[in-house]
């Protein structure tokens, strides 16, 4: 079963690069949705079946794969933009940096004192790489929507690490975390809407009147 | 001789001797100028005559103007009781009297300058400003000298410092004392408004110090001013003479005579200086006063280094 999980994680890596490389916001949102769904599957794969896991998986897929992308798509169509234009960092450099970050994630994961049962798995490098991808997007993109996708990828990275601990995490907490994420994205969506109304753009580089 | 006789001599000398010094100085200057000059006692006649005259007061002035010469005279008289004369302690010797001595002159100066400002004349204001400025520059030099004397004599009173001033001290601290005597002489001339600092006989107001301050005094007031000035010369001269003429015979009468003689000699020296030197440019005066302070500061450092 773990091989299947690893293959899903490889998919996650690939999806990271797609998000890094694309300028189309619609694609980025869909990629994040796929990533979320893939991650939602993993708990049920790696562990024996239990109601707890099923609930988590279902919740994950519903929230990360369906609800959030739907919210974001709505926000995108409301503000009517399609592309990230002129990010702070070009697509090629950022993909290169992403590649370096992924490589570093593997090296770094080797150094970590993991529990023996996790030594061979891709979870930790995947978590770190996804986290870094999220941060890269957050730091390099201008459009508010792109930044939300970056945040979602960052969350996904954290979630991958959380997969190692599914048993430790009570449902209530997991559910709470998911709910918070959902509400957070919902609020962000509303704000994006307001930004586009107020500034007739969701370019966050314009949001710099508050300083010092 | 009992103490009260000495005190009596002290008081008599203090009261009667000072105008003579002025007479001697004027006579010396006349000698150098090739004139016969006024009688030695002329200052006495002048003062008595002034005392009997009427007064003219400016309408601008207040009681401060009249108080000026009186306070100055009273303060100088009080100071006279602190300065040892001859080979005898002063009637009121106590630890720290040298400071009171110096500060009594300060009081006198305060009121002289205030009286000058009371006339509202810019000339007298100018004189007052100069007096106040120059005397505060002379102050450190005097105190450095007092430090030297205190250190040498291990005494805190003028009488202790000056009465036990044997010749041997000059052998021990010759260099330091020479510097100090130089400084003291400068102070003596500056404080008493003699050439090269001031010309007591000048009539060009713009260049005067003391004389311009007392321009408006007349009659008894002016007499008090003149008498006070001569008394001040006498007292500071006594301080100077004690150090420069360190001969004490032990015989009371001889010592008194020696003191009076050396005072007269001092007056001759001052007269000589006045006759042979030109008056300094006013802007040079502070420099000379500061150099007097430096001289006596050097003297102090030498003495500090020498005494264990």
């Amino acid at each position, binding site marked *: 079963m773990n091989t299947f999980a690893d293959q899903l994680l490889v998919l996650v890596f690939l999806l990271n690069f797609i998000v890094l490389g694309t300028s189309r916001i619609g694609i980025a949102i869909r990629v994040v949705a796929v990533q979320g769904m893939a991650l939602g599957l993993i708990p049920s794969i790696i562990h024996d079946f239990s109601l707890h896991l099923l609930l988590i998986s279902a919740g994950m897929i519903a929230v990360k794969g369906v609800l959030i992308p739907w919210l974001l798509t709505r926000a995108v169509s409301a503000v009517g933009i399609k592309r990230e234009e002129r990010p702070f960092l070009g697509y090629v450099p950022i993909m290169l940096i992403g590649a370096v970050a992924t490589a570093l994630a593997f090296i770094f994961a080797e150094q970590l004192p993991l529990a023996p049962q996790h030594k061979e798995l891709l979870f930790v490098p995947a978590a770190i790489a996804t986290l870094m991808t999220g941060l890269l997007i957050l730091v390099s993109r201008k459009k508010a929507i792109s930044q939300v996708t970056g945040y979602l990828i960052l969350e996904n990275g954290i979630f991958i690490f959380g997969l190692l601990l599914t048993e430790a995490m009570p449902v209530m907490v997991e559910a709470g975390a998911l709910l918070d994420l959902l509400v957070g994205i919902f609020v962000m969506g509303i704000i994006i809407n307001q930004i586009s109304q107020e500034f007739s753009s969701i370019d966050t580089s314009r949001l710099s009147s508050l300083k010092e | 001789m009992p103490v009260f006789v000495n005190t009596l001599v002290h008081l008599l000398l203090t009261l009667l001797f000072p105008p003579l010094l002025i007479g001697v100085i004027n006579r010396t200057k006349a000698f150098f100028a090739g004139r016969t000059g006024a009688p030695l006692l002329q200052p006495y006649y002048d003062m008595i005559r002034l005392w009997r005259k009427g007064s003219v007061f400016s309408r601008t002035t207040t009681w401060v103007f009249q108080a000026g010469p009186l306070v100055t005279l009273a303060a100088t008289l009080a100071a006279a009781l602190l300065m040892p004369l001859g080979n005898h302690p002063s009637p009121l010797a106590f630890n720290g009297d040298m400071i009171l001595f110096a500060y009594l002159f300060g009081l006198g100066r*305060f009121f002289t300058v205030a009286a000058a400002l009371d006339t509202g004349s810019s000339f007298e204001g100018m004189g007052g400003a100069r007096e106040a400025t120059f005397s505060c520059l002379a*102050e450190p030099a005097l105190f450095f000298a007092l430090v030297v004397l205190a250190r040498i004599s291990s005494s805190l009173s003028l009488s202790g410092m000056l009465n036990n001033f044997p010749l041997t001290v000059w052998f021990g601290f010759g260099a330091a004392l020479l510097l100090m005597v130089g400084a003291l002489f400068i102070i003596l001339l500056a404080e008493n408004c003699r050439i090269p600092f001031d010309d007591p006989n000048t009539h060009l107001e713009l260049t005067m110090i003391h004389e311009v301050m007392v321009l408006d005094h007349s*009659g008894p007031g002016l007499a008090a001013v003149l008498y006070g000035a001569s008394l001040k010369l006498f007292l500071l001269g006594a301080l100077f003479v004690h150090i420069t003429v360190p001969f004490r015979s032990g015989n009371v009468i001889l010592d008194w005579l020696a003191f009076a003689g050396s005072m007269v000699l001092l007056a001759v020296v001052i007269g000589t200086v006045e006759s042979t030197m030109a008056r300094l440019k006013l802007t040079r005066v502070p420099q000379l006063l500061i150099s007097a302070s430096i001289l006596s500061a050097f003297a102090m450092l030498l003495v500090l280094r020498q005494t264990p």
Partner: protein
Amino acid sequence: MISPILLTVTGIILALTAGIPLLVLTDQAKAQKISAVLHTLAAMAGICGALLSLAGGSRESWQIDWGLPFGPAEIAVDPLSALFLLPIFIVSACCAVYALSYWPAAENPESASRLTLSFAILTASLGIIVIARHAILFLAAWEIMAVACYFAMTVDSRKKEVREAGILYLVTAHIGALALFAYFALLKGEAGSYLFPPAGSLSASAATAIFLFALIGFGMKAGVVPLHIWLPSAHANAPSHVSAIMSGVLIKMGIYGLIRTVSFFAAIPFWWGVLVLAAGVISGLIGVIFAIGQHDIKRLLAYHSIENIGIIAMGTGVALMGTSAGIPSLVMLGMAGALLHTLNHATFKPLLFLCAGSVIHSCGTREIDRMGGLLKKMPLTGALFLTGAVAICGLPPLNGFVSEWLIYLGLFRGIIDADTFNDPYFALAAPALALIGGLAVACFVKVFGIAFLGEPRDERARDAHEAGPAMIAPMVVLAGICALIGLLPQAVAPLLERIVFSLYPGMAASGIKLAAHASLGMVSIVALLLLFLLAGTALLYRSRLAKGPVTAAETWGCGYQAPTQRMQYTASSFAATLVGLFSGVLRPHTRTPQIQGHFPKPASFRSHVPEALLEGFYLPLFDGLNSRLSLVRKLQHGKLHLYILYIVITLLTLLVWSHFRVRS
């Protein structure tokens, strides 16, 4: 037996209640009178308490259990506290009475209640400071004092210079208080509790930091150069009776703190004394030199406060050097001189400020150069100012001389104790003090002469009027104290002795007497003799004057036919030579007009001596720092993605740091 502490606390509470009447009564004028009466009653109680304590020489304390986790508090009255309580109560009562006519509630309806309330709180907090024996209580009173004083001095905050002076004062006061935080924290570390340790109970070996913090914190309040920058503008811009209490009492709290601090330590290093002496000399000289350059009568008086604080510090320095060298006579003379000068300065400086207040009240300006001839219009104020001026110059026969004389004696005693000191500290300090004295005479002759003598230079000065009895009476009281201490200094000698013994318990046993080292009786004799001689000459002179003809005329104008009042010597011209001599320190600003052509246009000359240390050092430093900081402020640029980068960088830095930290 009524206990001193009970009386003192009663006084403090009464002073505090003095702020209330104006808040609750509708008849403001009456309320202000009640307030002044309360202040006077407070003063009576407080002065009785202080005198009882000084006469008894014992220490009395009360424990207070309070709801704070710092251990029980303690208040105590000992001779040192008592000495500082005297000026607090005397000056506050005088100022409260003075305010009746200087700042009448009927004419200042919106500010009188605020002023009276802050003044009452100020008085009470001053009282608490000197009886507090617990760090927290002390600090609380200290800060309340600073803040109350801020509100009292900025009543007229519609004026820009008042606001600016207020801000400068408040900021420096707070910085000083912060130094005291450190001081008390360290002191607690040494003493083990927040209570003040008994005199001589701590070892000074590890106390360098404590001493330095005390010097900064208390020195800031006292106005020791170079921490004095707040003082001139604060004193100049406050209402005159507030300036009086600031200068007479508030800055003395710094002296109190410093003396209290050094009393905690048993054997102190020699350099403490040297440092305090040096700070004193520098403050004295800088203070008086700057004073000479001022034309603003209150700014001038403010600089003289710095000078006098310097003189007090010199006395303290002598005592400290005596302590570490083990020479009791030095300790006795230096400390007695410093303490007496504290008391003296608290009489003549408020006197001068109150006189200045009357003058300003009547002339409407603080500029000396616009006054003149005031002695004719205000004979009493003029005479009282003259008294204060003679006293502050340290001239006999008034009190300023006595304390300066004690300090001189201490210095000379140090000079002739050849076995112990070969260092020139004392020998340099004595002439410096003489120079200070000389300059002070020049300065006060200038103020008195230009403001009170001659002819009026301005319309307002011509129409000046004498101050009312409510203003004159407090000044008479203060002048009376100046004369009393000046003429009968031997009366205060045993009190001073007791304070020194309470500070140095070891000295009490040795039986050393102040009188043995300083014949205050002789000073008294000479002072009385001086008065006698003056009376004698005056009598002679009057009788002579009565006999001869007396003519009134114009002032001799040296032949000039049309003199005007504006041709009189001014304060600036009087000081010009000295200002020129010290221009290296003073950095005067002058604007000299260009006079051209045969018929030059009317021109004006202006000169001004600024607070050189503030304008030449602190403000440029602050501005320079600020312009550097504008680079740092670019960090908050408003760009969100870089803010996120900050988070990443922080994470990485912490990770790397922890990595190396765990390795090592």
